[in-house]
């Protein structure tokens, strides 16, 4: 059995306390790091639904949060690329964080992507960010008609749908992980009052 000195234990517990304080200060309501499977997605849905019942006041905003969470989790499970670090292989893994500000709910995700994808992801998001409601609707309809479901089950609709449902621009950032990989962070903002 490993022996920990009191100093080590206190150090670790202090770290947990700092972590807790950080979560409180950013009003982090939910955070998950790991492999995103369909089971995990379903677990989050029941959790989100239970919370929705508790707080009637913002039902429509919470419904959008729920919607955005599902699409974000499915993006990770379908599109996260393998990421090797030490002995760990990150495939279909990522982070999901739901947090609050005074006037919005934030759903932020992060997952590894190969650098070759950065350009197309950037172009896609910039394009839908620059569109108004009508053009977004047209794009969504066109994608539904023409885009066939890929073998991974995606129809290229998730990001357009998040942009439409939230009415806000998607924010993103790529953080380099290695020569060939970056960590793709995506933030969706859901206004508390529509």
């Amino acid at each position: 059995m490993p022996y920990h000195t009191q100093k080590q234990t206190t150090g670790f517990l202090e770290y947990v306390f700092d972590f807790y304080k950080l979560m409180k200060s950013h009003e982090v309501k939910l955070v998950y790091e790991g492999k995103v499977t369909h089971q995990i997605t379903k677990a989050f849905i029941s959790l989100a639904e239970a919370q929705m019942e508790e707080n009637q006041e913002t039902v429509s905003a919470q419904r959008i949060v729920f919607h955005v969470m599902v699409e974000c989790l499915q993006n990770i499970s379908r599109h996260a690329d393998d990421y090797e670090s030490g002995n760990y292989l990150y495939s279909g893994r990522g982070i999901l964080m739901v947090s609050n500000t005074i006037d919005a709910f934030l759903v932020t995700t992060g997952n590894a992507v190969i650098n070759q994808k950065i350009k197309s992801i950037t172009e896609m998001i910039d394009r839908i960010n620059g569109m108004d409601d009508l053009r977004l609707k047209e794009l969504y309809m066109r994608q539904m008609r023409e885009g066939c479901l890929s073998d991974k089950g995606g129809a290229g609709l998730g990001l357009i749908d998040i942009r439409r449902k939230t009415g806000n621009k998607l924010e993103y950032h790529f953080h380099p992980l290695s020569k060939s990989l970056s960590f793709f962070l995506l933030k969706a903002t859901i206004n508390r009052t529509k």
Partner: protein
Amino acid sequence: MEPLRIDRTDDSPQVIFDVENDLFEISGRSLPEDVNTFYEPVLSWLEEYSRNPAPKTTFDFRLTYFNTASSKVILDILTIFEEMIEDGQELLVRWFYPKEDEDMLEAGEEYAEMVEVPFEMVSY
């Protein structure tokens, strides 16, 4: 024609297609792990039905939630209906939505714009 009945689960809708009892309904929540596998029997049943349908079909969508992958399949279903109407069949889609759920109403209205199929929006 043999009825098609699929029980609802926490991620897939209930499906009841029953010609004898004049019941055509998809209800609940739709975010199955594999959309193609789940909807394959649904689409093939409807394809077969469309070749020899009842004089009038009323089809109910009573969904509370569907993900974007499912939204594409819903359009595939409506496209089968559109072809039935082109062939001179009578068909009505009733799109049910919870009265406070504007997004679900909007989704129905958008489908109604996309296909030449009569829609009736019903709040509950």
